[in-house]
Structures are given as C-alpha cells and as structure tokens.
C-alpha cells in the first residue's frame, strides 16, 4: 500500500516533466511561450511565476475539493486562480520590477492559461494534496524547461549571445558571446529570431523534433500491437480449425496453417 502511494507520487511528479510536457506534448499555454521568450531571463522568470501560481492554485483547490459543489466548480477555480495571480503580480511589481515591465500583460494572462485551469480540473479535483503539489512542481519544471529551450535558441540566434543580469539585476551583467563577438567583426546573428516571426519558427522546429521522436516511438508500439493482435487471431483460428478438423478431413487444416503463416510474415517484413 505504501509502495503504491509512493509510486503514485513519483508518477505525478515525473510525468509533468518530459512524458506529458504541458507545452510540447499537450500543446497548452502557447501564448506566453511565444511572447516572453525573446530573452532567456524573462522566460525563466515567467516559468518561475507560473510554477508559483500553479502550485498555490493546485494545493488550495485540492484542499477545497470536497466543499465546492459540482455545478459551480469552474467559477470557483477561476476566482482562486485569479486571486493568486493578483498576489503574484503585486509581489513581482514590488521585488522584481524589471521582470514586471518585461512580462507586461502576460502576467495577468496566467489567469486564463490553459495549463493552470486544465490541471485544476483534471488533477487537483480528484487527487490528494500531496499528489497535486508534486504534479504542480513537475508541470512547472516541464514548462520552464520548455520555454527556456525556446528562449535559448531565439536569443542565441537573434542577438548573438546570451545576456544575463538585465532583468535579475542582482546577478552581474554578463553577455556570453556565441554568434557575435564584440571586439571583432564577426556577427552571424539573425535578428528575425527575436521578432515575432522567430517565435513561430523556433516553436515549429521544436515541435517537429518532438513529433519525429513521437513517431518513432509510435511505429514501434504500433508494430508490437499489430503482431500481438495477429497472433491472438491466429491462435483463435487454429483452435477453430482444430475443432473443425476433428469432424472433417485433413485439407482444412492445411489451408488454415497457410492462412496463419502469411500475416505474421508480412508484419515481420514491415518491422524491418
């Protein structure tokens, strides 16, 4: 019993990071992912604030799940999430004003972020507080990773280097030159990537990579499932043929054997 609970905890934490990544696999929350990823610092800040909002809302909704009647659960979730977003906005405006002015409206748009509402309705509604907590942290880490990857490519290709210290001003200002070396004439940066078009391009290419990996996994699963099903059907046919052969002469068995041999050979060819 204890192992089941522990494995459920691990499952809800790990699945949000890679296997069911909210941005790349479930395709949710794409609006901030394209808009705030012009620099890796703002993407990281957005991911942090997103994780905070998701965590608080998941825990509170999981605590209140028995008190809210079924009919009115959507309005209540919206109010809870909006309350936490307002609190986050006020904290950010006070302690990280550069991040607040960079993110702009997208901090308020966390209220209608599909991931936060989706996790509340699909997971926090039915699971314990501990599971909801771990699920929120897992999804937050997954989303932050996803938008940081997009922001890394957009910033590196668009401005030529990674700059830190502009938004999180307590860090020393430092530019890591990758494509643009300030002392020399080398400048291979392409400014289209920090424009709006670049967001679409990088996101499309990232999704193509993810789709390629998924397709490979899916073909393997498909071929395995097919072989299994054909073997089951062949076994049923053999049993039926045996029952028929017990009453009738031998040729029926020979045709049944030939019919079994062909589908299995075909799937083996497809697998290669």
């Amino acid at each position: 019993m204890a192992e089941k609970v522990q494995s459920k905890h691990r499952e809800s934490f790990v699945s949000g990071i890679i296997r069911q990544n909210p941005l790349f696999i479930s395709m949710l929350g794409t609006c901030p992912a394209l808009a705030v990823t012009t620099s890796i610092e703002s993407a990281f800040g957005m991911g942090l604030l997103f994780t905070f909002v998701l965590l608080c809302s998941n825990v509170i909704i999981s605590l209140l799940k028995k008190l809210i009647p079924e009919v009115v659960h959507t309005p209540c979730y919206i109010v809870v999430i909006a309350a936490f977003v307002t609190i986050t906005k006020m904290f950010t405006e006070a302690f990280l004003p550069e991040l607040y002015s960079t993110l702009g409206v997208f901090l308020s748009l966390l209220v209608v972020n599909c991931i936060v509402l989706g996790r509340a309705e699909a997971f926090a509604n039915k699971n314990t507080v501990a599971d909801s907590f771990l699920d929120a942290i897992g999804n937050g880490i997954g989303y932050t990773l996803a938008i940081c990857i997009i922001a890394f490519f957009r910033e590196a290709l668009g401005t030529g280097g990674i700059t830190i210290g502009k938004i999180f001003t307590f860090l020393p200002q430092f530019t890591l030159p990758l494509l643009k070396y300030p002392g020399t004439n080398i400048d291979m940066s392409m400014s289209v990537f920090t424009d709006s078009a670049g967001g679409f391009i990088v996101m499309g290419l990232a999704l193509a990579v993810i789709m390629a990996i998924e397709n490979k996994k899916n073909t393997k699963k498909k071929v395995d499932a097919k072989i299994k099903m054909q073997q089951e059907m062949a076994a049923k046919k053999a049993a039926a043929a045996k029952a028929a052969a017990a009453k009738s002469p031998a040729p029926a068995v020979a045709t049944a054997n030939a019919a079994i041999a062909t589908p299995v050979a075909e799937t083996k060819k497809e697998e290669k």
Partner: protein
Amino acid sequence: MNPAVPYIVTFLLAIVSSMLIDNVVLSRFYGICSFIGVGNKPKAAFSMGLAVTFVTIMAALVCWPIYTFVLQPLQIPFMDTLTYILVIASLVQIVGLFIKKYSPALYKAFGIYLPLITTNCAVLGVVQGNTDSGLSFGMSMANAIGTAIGFVIVIVIFSFIRIRLEEYKTPKAFRGIAIALITAALMSIAFLGFSGMVPSN
C-alpha cells in the same frame, strides 16, 4: 492627439493600426491556442472569429467604465484582473443564454464556441492592455474593434492556407502543427509590410 486631425480619423487609424500593424495573433501573440486548434475548416474559423468579435467588443465596452468609474475612485486598482475575468465570463454566459433562448440562427452560427472564449487570451489581453496602457475610452474601443477584425482576418486566411497545405507531401515530422507554425511565421513576416502605414504620433 494632433488637434488639426479630426477625431474620427484618429479613431479609424487606431483601428487599422491594431488590426494590421500590431496584429493580435501574428504580432502580439494573443489568440494562439484557438488559432492552431481551428485547423482547416473555414466555416468553423469564421464562427470562432465571430464569437471572439462579439465578446471582445462587449467586454471592452463594459470593463473600461468599471475600471475608471468604480475601481479607480475607490482606490482598489489591484482588483482589475479578478474583475475583468469575472465580467468576461459572466458576459459569455449571458450572451449564450440570450442566443439559446431567442436566436437559434445565431446559436447555429457561433453558439458552441462561446464557452471556449472565456479562456481565450485575446479577450483578457485586450481588456487588460487597455487599462494598463492608460488609453482613453475611444482608443480602447478602437483597439478592441481592430483586434477583433484582425483576428477574424488572420484566422480565416490561415484556415484556407491549411487546406492547401494538406494536399502536399510534407515530411512526416512536420505534418500538422509544425508546418502550420512555420507558415504562420511567413504570414507574420508578410504582415510586417504594413508597418509603415500609420504614422505614430
């Protein structure tokens, strides 16, 4: 505001500016979820656009006065996000109620998309952006109207493009969403051509 230019011209220029130059989907990145989701059906795309237009214009009409005449005088401006989302959600339900009861034709046209508009970033983004930037009432309404028309234009054009895209043999990994996003990137670059149209003053 330039005193030599009549107000109606400024209003129309503001509509054009938020419709084409700062397009809501391609430049401000607001309605991406529904933009990708509608796919290759122009009729569904137009219905979705119609629903977004309705809700955006009504929400902007109601939310700006609430902020200026209720929240600001009472010195509780931090309640804006909460108020806006509740107003938008209630408007969606009330409009849906009226359409269900009194107009089956409109319900067939866009009624089923109405509940999905509550979580559309475009509506809340426009309304919150209006008060965050401190625009006047006329400019807020121009922003909302321009956003709505821009959304409809882009989503309908995109659905027609996707019908064509399905006829070609794209590489397997790009099929579906990835090639749609790259096409949207090209559309975004095309819309950059509008950027010099309205002189910003």
